[in-house]
């Protein structure tokens, strides 16, 4: 491998390194043994002094240095030109290729950061979003807060119907709306985080230009064709964590419990409560270079009496963040259960390879909350961790419904 890299590097440089250390003084004569070492060195120095050349880096090194100083791509994607920057991504999974532009600004003391962005996807989705952080995440203070807003129109979201036995064939719907959310996170000691959030959601699901209307296919699907409605939502989250952060990657576990209320203030049909529990662990197998990563997650949404839960508020399984061998949004229902198990081994300290198994199911009644009739997926992937907590993943996953390739940022589950 080293030989190949060396060859590539030599070719890239056009064998241009010589100029970095050239003396331009062709001295071929043999040293004279009749003079001392001291005299010989003096002779060499005198000869060199008559043929000095400017000392500089090669043209190739200068080019690389200019690129380095430009801090590409960080300067483009983080700060842009005077705050204006291009964007890639930032829409829900399965949105296609997403491009956009935005503006970001930060207070001089790094206490306040604001950004506003516009995005467009290759599937025709549009999104305008803004966010304010006070103070910035990763600040030394024990709290952080945010306010965010998003206006969006997604034109061909997937829906496969409800329940564990939904058909594999893709159907589409559109969703547009506006949502605003604010939150406050407080850290208590090193092992407890409490988060409170409150927000506003105005949304409407409708037919997609692609494929037949959902209400024709699934006439009983709650929330389709019911027009626009408005939710007030609020809730809280507690996270208990016990990670060993002195070594890298971190090992340990965390437990998250979350409750959120959706209050339908327009149609008065869709008020519900959502409960989430999640346990994650990353455990070294004797040494930290090989680890088992585990996640158990379950979501339960309970409608108020005489109310329903609209399908677009139901959490789905399938895709890069859950059942990786299935399409995004493949399974949808009031409740779900997800288990991920990964064996990760270190390629080098900033890159892991992984083999994984995913299991999960959706179900309507709490009585089905068990490990029977799980959908299974399996596969392998690579996790690359960059500086500053950035990370990148590639997963190749299979299931009874075929093979899926996922690219993404962020560790799948720590």
């Amino acid at each position: 491998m080293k030989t190949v890299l060396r060859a590539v590097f030599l070719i890239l440089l056009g064998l241009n390194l010589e100029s970095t250390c050239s003396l331009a003084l062709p001295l071929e004569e043999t040293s004279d043994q009749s003079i001392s070492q001291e005299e010989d060195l003096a002779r060499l120095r005198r000869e060199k002094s008559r043929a000095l050349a400017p000392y500089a880096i090669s043209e190739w090194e200068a080019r690389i240095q200019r690129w380095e100083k430009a801090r590409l791509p960080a300067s483009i994607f983080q700060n842009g030109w005077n705050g204006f920057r291009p964007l890639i991504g930032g829409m829900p999974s399965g949105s296609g290729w997403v491009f956009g532009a935005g503006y970001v600004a930060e207070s001089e003391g790094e206490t306040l950061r604001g950004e506003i962005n516009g995005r467009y996807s290759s599937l025709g989705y549009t999104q305008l979003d803004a966010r304010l952080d006070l103070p910035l995440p990763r600040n030394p203070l024990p709290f952080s807060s945010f306010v965010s807003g998003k206006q969006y129109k997604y034109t061909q979201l997937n829906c496969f119907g409800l329940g564990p036995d939904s058909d594999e064939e893709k159907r589409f719907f559109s969703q547009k709306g506006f949502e605003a959310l604010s939150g406050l996170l407080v850290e208590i000691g090193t092992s407890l985080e409490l988060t409170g959030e409150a927000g506003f959601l105005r949304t409407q699901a409708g037919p997609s230009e692609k494929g037949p209307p959902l209400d024709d296919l699934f006439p009983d699907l709650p929330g389709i064709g019911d027009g626009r409605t408005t939710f007030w939502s609020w809730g809280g989250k507690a996270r208990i964590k016990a990670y060993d952060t002195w070594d890298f990657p971190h090992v340990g576990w965390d437990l998250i419990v979350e409750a959120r209320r959706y209050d339908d203030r327009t149609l008065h049909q869709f008020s519900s409560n959502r409960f989430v529990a999640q346990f994650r662990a990353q455990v070294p197998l004797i040494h930290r270079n090989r680890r088992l990563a585990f996640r158990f997650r379950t979501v339960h949404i309970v409608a108020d009496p005489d109310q329903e839960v609209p399908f677009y508020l139901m959490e789905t399984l399938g895709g890069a963040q859950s059942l990786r061998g299935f399409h995004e949004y493949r399974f949808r229902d009031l409740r779900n259960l997800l288990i991920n198990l990964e064996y990760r081994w270190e390629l080098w300290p900033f890159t892991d390879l992984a083999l994984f198994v995913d299991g999960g199911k959706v179900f309507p009644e709490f009585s089905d909350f068990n490990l029977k009739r799980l959908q299974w997926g399996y596969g392998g992937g690579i996790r690359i961790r960059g500086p500053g907590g950035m990370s990148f993943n590639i997963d190749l996953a299979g299931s009874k419904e075929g093979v899926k390739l996922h690219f993404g940022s962020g560790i799948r589950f720590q």
Partner: protein
Amino acid sequence: MNRGLSRTLTVWFSIWLLAPICGSLFGQRFHPSDPMRVDDDRLIDVVAEPAELELSDMFDRFSNMFLPLGEPGFSEALNVNSLGEVPDSSWFTNRHCFNRMKTDALCKGPNFTAPPDVDSDWMVFRGKSQGVTPGFHIEDSKGDRYVIKFDPIQAPELATAAEIIATRIFFALGYNVPENYIVYVDPKRFKIREGTRVTNRFGDKVPLTETRLRRMLAKVHVTEEGLMRVTASKYIPGRPIGPFRYFGTRSDDPNDVIPHEQRRELRGLRLFAAWTNHDDTRAQNTQDSWIEEEGRRFIRHYLMDFGSTFGSGSVKIQDGYLGFYYSIPLDLLKENALRFGLNTPIYRKVDWPDFPEFRAIGRWESENFDPVRWRNDYRNAAFIRMTAQDAFWAARTLMSFSSEDLWAIVRTGQFTRGEDERYFYKVLLERQRKCGEWGVNLLNPVDVFGVRDSSLTFKNLSEHFGFTAPDSTLYEIVWHEFDNIASRTVRRLGGALQTREESAALPPLPKPQGGSEPFLLAEIRSIHPDFEHWARPVRVYLRPNGSTFEIVGVERESPLETIPMD
């Protein structure tokens, strides 16, 4: 450095080595100026201001990793004198090894002036705000300029102690290093000079304001007394002109005629760096300075930035794999890719100090340390050319520190906890022993030659440092008459002497032939059951000096091969 010049030097060195074998084919072997104690690399006045060199960090890393830098071919180091020693130069000054420094001098190190005045304001005129810890350039009330560096907030004392201790060690070893001080300062002392700009985390230059400054300082640990512990690194004298590379020469420096990769002090630096875990031995952490002293202008070469030494990674606790692998560890990738994690790299097996208890120490240990397998950040062109002779020189040099010396130096790190101090010292001592034992035992370990009371005296360094049992070595000494003018051995003087004494009586003085006084040559072989290669002779040349002799040359026979570092 062009190939012609390097070839010239290689030929010169080869002639010197081969002279006793080839005899009168060549000229005089030793000259009155031998051994050359000082390499006058200030000889030519560097009149024109040299260009300031700025390297690309990425290019430097990748070119060193993947390109064959430096002269092709291979030779022993070219800048050694007839004793195999490194003469004093603008690169290196023989200090503790030859002229034992007193404890206070060791502790003082390069600090010949004073730290910044903590009772007056420090004017910040340059800084960086990106990264996890800030850094500033300041000017104190006396007008002296310093680079101010801080500890990582989660590991107080880690980087500052490492920087100070390493500075003392590398100075005593012989390198040029900046004056570095640990200073406790009130954060209110930091003031902003008008017009100062800092690089923010996006890489943009923005004005340094009071708000920004306080925000940056909020990332620094403050003691119970409200003070910040910092390293104040004084600007080096002269005009900085950028780093030196570990290969080639500066084409605008007439005095720089020996390719850097062929300098023994740079090759031997590998062992010193292994001892101190100075993994960041890259060009970027060196500095050349254009200096005027005594009416002569020349370039002096410095080692800088010792924050990534011992268990410190400058801005964090050192990553475990550094020191065991290059920062781009291709061999590790290859090893791990297809083994599904069933193998465990050595750095994952290490029982590192407990954190946070030993956070001031970081990842610093000796049990798994192996000086041969130790790796710095990249394939340093000088390090990969280290030979057994370079390693022997380095091992002997680093063993010049006694345990008392090292304890005194460790204490300059000003650890708050005694446990930290003791642990640091214990590991330093154990790693020194490993480095010393490996390097000294690589060659026939007789050294420290002298003439006393009509006897040639020497020391077996392996026995002297306790690497082998005392008096376990038998020495076989053969005397020759040596014709220095013809550069050849004239005749053998008597039979082989076998002794366990570290001395041998000089043979009867041969009568002068042809007007010149004959030299003596002693061939010393060491016979030891555990080290067969010690039987390779060390040749000691003695020059007549009045009624007695003086040592003029030492030649160690060893295979010409590098210590692998792939």
